[in-house]
């Protein structure tokens, strides 16, 4: 039995009368490759926001390595090792690729509050950022402005920023969304090469990606966990198929 890195207990989030996430008990093992799937509006992104502390939960707890972090703010959780990417790029578009990654590296290294030397003088941090870009095959674009890159490579930068935080838990929100199919393999390759010790939770619609990547899958429907298991179990689960074809009585979960 592997160690549990991230855990939620009875996690819920209401928006007024709407229950977006309802009583989720979820465990993410250390070094896990875990996918979170489900139809639109199932509450996947809300769940990520609860894990990262963007939103406070209405009920329930979030535990990281057994420690209750429910009331820890977003920045604090990052320091504890939870990093994420966004479904739609959130990059520093006016800056170069290297600068984008450097900002993250510097922040992680605790040097971002320093005022009295040029950022360029921290050769160690820049070297680290360059090394990361090299592993993501972005080194050639390091000096380019992010906004000048094709979208697929911008998605890689999105990933690079998260990895630069050296997380223990990495939450990927549709990492290949918006990327032309011809380019999507570069993202997938990058994800596959992620360091093994990182626990990865990926939200993804592309089942090819999910089945290729995930060792475990959680299906969310209407804010609750609908099913969980290995890819084989999920694939074999007729109810999951129903959900995806829209033929399961979704109303049951509203009741």
């Amino acid at each position: 039995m592997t160690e549990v890195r991230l855990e939620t207990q009875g996690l819920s989030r209401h928006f007024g009368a709407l229950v977006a996430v309802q009583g989720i008990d979820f465990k993410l093992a250390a070094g896990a490759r875990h996918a979170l799937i489900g139809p639109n509006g199932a509450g996947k992104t809300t769940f990520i926001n609860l894990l990262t502390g963007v939103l406070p939960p209405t009920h329930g707890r979030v535990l990281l390595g057994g420690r209750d972090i429910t009331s820890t703010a977003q920045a604090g959780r990052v320091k504890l090792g939870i990093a994420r990417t966004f479904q739609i790029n959130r990059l520093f578009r006016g800056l170069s690729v290297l600068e984008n990654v450097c900002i993250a590296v510097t922040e992680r290294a605790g040097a971002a509050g320093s005022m009295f030397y040029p950022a360029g003088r921290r050769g160690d941090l820049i070297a680290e950022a360059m090394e990361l870009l090299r592993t993501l095959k972005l080194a050639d674009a390091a000096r380019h402005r992010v906004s000048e890159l094709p979208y697929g490579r911008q998605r890689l930068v999105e990933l690079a920023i998260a990895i630069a935080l050296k997380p223990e838990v990495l939450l990927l929100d549709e990492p290949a969304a918006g990327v032309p199919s011809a380019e999507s393999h570069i993202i997938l390759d990058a994800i596959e090469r992620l360091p093994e010790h990182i626990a990865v939770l990926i939200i993804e619609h592309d089942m090819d990606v999910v089945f290729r990547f995930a060792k475990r899958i959680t299906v969310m429907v209407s804010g609750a966990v609908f099913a969980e298991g290995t890819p084989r179990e999920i694939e074999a689960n007729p109810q999951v198929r129903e959900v995806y074809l829209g033929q399961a009585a979704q109303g049951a979960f509203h009741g």
Partner: protein
Amino acid sequence: MRRHRLRWWEALPWIAGIVFYFAFPDYLGFGCELLVTILFALSLDLALGYAGIITLGHAAFFGAGAYTVGMLASYNIWTEPITGLLLAALVAGAIGFLSGIVLLRTRGLTLLMLTLCIMALLEQAANMGAAYTGGFDGLPSLPIAPLFGVFDFSALYADTQYLFALAVLFVCFLFVRILVYSPFGQSLTGIRENVSRMHAIGSPVRRRLIVCYTISAALAGVAGGLLAQTTAYVNLAVLGLDRAATVLIVLILGGYGRLYGAFIGAVIYLALEHFLAQVYPTAWQLGLGLMLVVIALFARNGILGLAETLWRRYENRRGPS
């Protein structure tokens, strides 16, 4: 990443500043005004251009600095110019820190209105305390001690003042320059470019903003203190919307978020205003207004933005051949 390295043309403003001193000894009063405005705009750039804090109340700090220097001098408590500026920075910074804690939760128009109202409050307070601040009539003929105990501030030819202001601007500029290229400055740029990403990489965004706002306020305080010293005068107008709006316009005109936007904007705005007003004292605002409208319509991000666009276009055209 090597942006922080000095380039040859960065010496130009300072050379120009010194040439101005020798070439136009009769314009040094105007020169002082220009230097003070550049410094004030630079302080605003730190908040607005780098951290994206949109404020219409920056004169609050300018005025705080000016009154610190002015009141200490007027009551003969402290007249030494260099330490006077440090005290101005301290007081303005403290006000920036306190108001920043309260205000920097908000954004957009709300923040704009709140900064404006804080400034108006200070202005009203200074008016109500006219017995001490001199109110609208101000504190006249401030005694400013000679610089280093040697160089007097002449009232007629502002030569000492000019060089002093130039030196202060230079020191402050170096400070700002180091700051914006520092890791801290980079994280401010990050906040401006994408605040939610900064949260997501674990940056203490609000703390950074407050620190930045405080530094910016302190620099504005230095600018205000410098105005009080170079003109030997301070009155309520240092806290007015007029000054806050002018510096905002100066910065947008020059181009915000760029170290030299404050320089370009202040030089062009003030020079145009000054010389149009000499030629056509009753309606010079027409020319100034037309320029602002034209720049707003045809340039994105001010004159420096326009220059960059043109330069890139030129490069692109040259590139393929």
